């Protein structure tokens, strides 16, 4: 039955073989939160990492964004797993900066097999920014940034000719508009995350002949600084209807970053070698409520 089990986890003389040994993953938004968790989960299974994060504030975002120290901590934790990492401060809205990072990653590792387009912002509830500013910033980072990332990485995957796996971070708000209130923060987030699904489907069709798979993950609220921060906690206290809107069907308030990372790992690995075009919810039943 060796053929049956060929894609399962194997062990040689008690040494576990990583699911991603020899692979390289590029992850955007890797300084903290889900992005760092993905870097550590993939590195833990043998992948080397290329990551970018903006590491500075965007004015319309109401919670503190990641810092250079956060990115340095991701580097430290990946290296503690005995994997290599190329980490750069770059804004996904800046396509030439992304191209530079991809070039540096390729110079270091020679190839990129896995792309996790994770960088994103959430301006919901900010009273200090205009609706127009929040809408445009959110779409620029979450949707145009994902387009820039795809454009920076996938030509290399095609040229190399050895397939690949692309995972785009959408959201439950990529599948439903529940909670929409007409503000730029809410509409920008929902529109951008729905747009990510469109990118996923379009690129899944585009890249399938090259054995490059493209899927999206759709988390409900995740316990990271994007959701669990002073600003949002206070907002929920002021407007309890928002907290009610966010209730999941399973008895869990927030999922953990590792839950999204486990889905990303599965989609990144050869266990899903024929899975493409899937919108994978990690949402404790939020979207079926």
């Amino acid at each position, binding site marked *: 039955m060796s053929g049956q*089990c060929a894609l399962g986890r194997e062990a040689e003389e008690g040494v576990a073989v990583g699911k991603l040994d020899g692979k390289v993953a590029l992850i955007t938004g890797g300084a903290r939160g889900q992005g760092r968790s993905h870097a550590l989960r993939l590195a833990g299974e043998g992948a080397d990492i290329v990551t970018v994060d903006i590491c500075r504030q965007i004015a319309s975002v109401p919670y503190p964004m990641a810092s250079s120290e956060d990115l340095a901590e991701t580097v430290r934790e990946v290296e503690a797993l005995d994997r290599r990492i190329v980490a750069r401060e770059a804004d996904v809205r800046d396509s030439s900066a992304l191209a530079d990072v991809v070039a540096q990653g390729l110079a270091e590792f020679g190839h990129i097999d896995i792309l996790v387009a994770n960088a994103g912002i959430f301006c919901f509830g900010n009273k200090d920014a205009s609706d127009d500013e929040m809408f445009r910033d959110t779409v620029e980072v979450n949707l145009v940034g994902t387009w820039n990332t795809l454009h920076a990485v996938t030509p290399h995957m095609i040229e190399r000719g050895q397939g690949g796996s692309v995972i785009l971070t959408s959201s439950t708000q990529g599948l439903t508009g529940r909670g929409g209130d007409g503000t730029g923060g809410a509409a920008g987030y929902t529109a951008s995350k729905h747009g990510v699904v469109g990118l996923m489907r379009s690129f899944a069709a585009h890249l399938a002949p090259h054995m490059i798979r493209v899927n999206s993950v759709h988390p*409900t609220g995740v316990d990271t600084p994007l959701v669990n921060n002073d600003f949002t906690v206070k907002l929920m206290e002021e407007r309890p209807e928002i907290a009610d809107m966010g209730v999941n069907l399973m008895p869990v308030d927030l999922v953990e970053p590792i839950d999204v990372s486990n889905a990303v790992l599965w989609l990144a690995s050869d266990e899903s070698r*024929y899975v493409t075009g899937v919108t*994978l919810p990690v949402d404790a*039943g939020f*979207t079926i409520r």
Partner: protein
Amino acid sequence: MTGRVAGKVAFITGAARGQGRSHALRLAEEGADIIAIDLCESVPNVSRFYPGATYDDLAETVRLVESLDRRIVATKADVRDLAAVEAAVREGMATLGRLDIVVANAGIFMFGEETHRVSEADWKDVIDINLTGVWHTAKSVVPHLIEQGSGGSIILTSSTAGIKGTPNAGPYTASKHGVVGLMKSMARELAIHSIRVNTIHPTGVATPMILNERAFNLFLPDVDHPTLAQAAEAFTSVNSLPIPWVESIDVSNAVLFLASDESRYVTGLQFKVDGGSTLK
């Protein structure tokens, strides 16, 4: 015992061969004990397409699971017979102590006629096995999972025909869409118990169900005795990835992910393992 489903018990229908056997082995390899059932007979109306599994096939599944040092309770049972399914679950749980994972995999495939020309008998067989059989499976396991109180994962095998219409396979397509309806209702009912319910939607899988001349003719109606190579070319046209079909292990790897705690907050998902077939 280590493994991604170590210490869990999985109930799998249609486990004598094909995808069902592959699921049993993949889950056993990752530490699960198995409760298995299969009809172990040819369904008369299906025999003109492909032969059913045999008791020897089920015995081979038992041998292979035991060779992985896992326990298995295997019973010849028909998913159309609710009492038989319930008894198999009861007996399996009595031996193995618990139940965590359910894979409702048993199904048949009949095709080749426009839907309005299908016989009453063919319609009834497909719906009874592929849809009512899945409901029987769910009805047999859910009370145990709720009473046990430690959650669970129920995986229903649908098909790309549970997402898109498949011409000349009306009963099959209706049954596999019906499975999605069951999944959606149960996912909402059972979330409060931390029991997750998802469907799997494979494109063609390299098993006896499709690797036969009749199935080849579905895609090559004008070719007498089509070869495997001709069929592969025709099947490839269905998918986006340049592959004719997937292997059972590819579906099993998805089943394993959904069965394990790696997907502990994933429910209500139509999970495609389809080479991009439904993107087209």
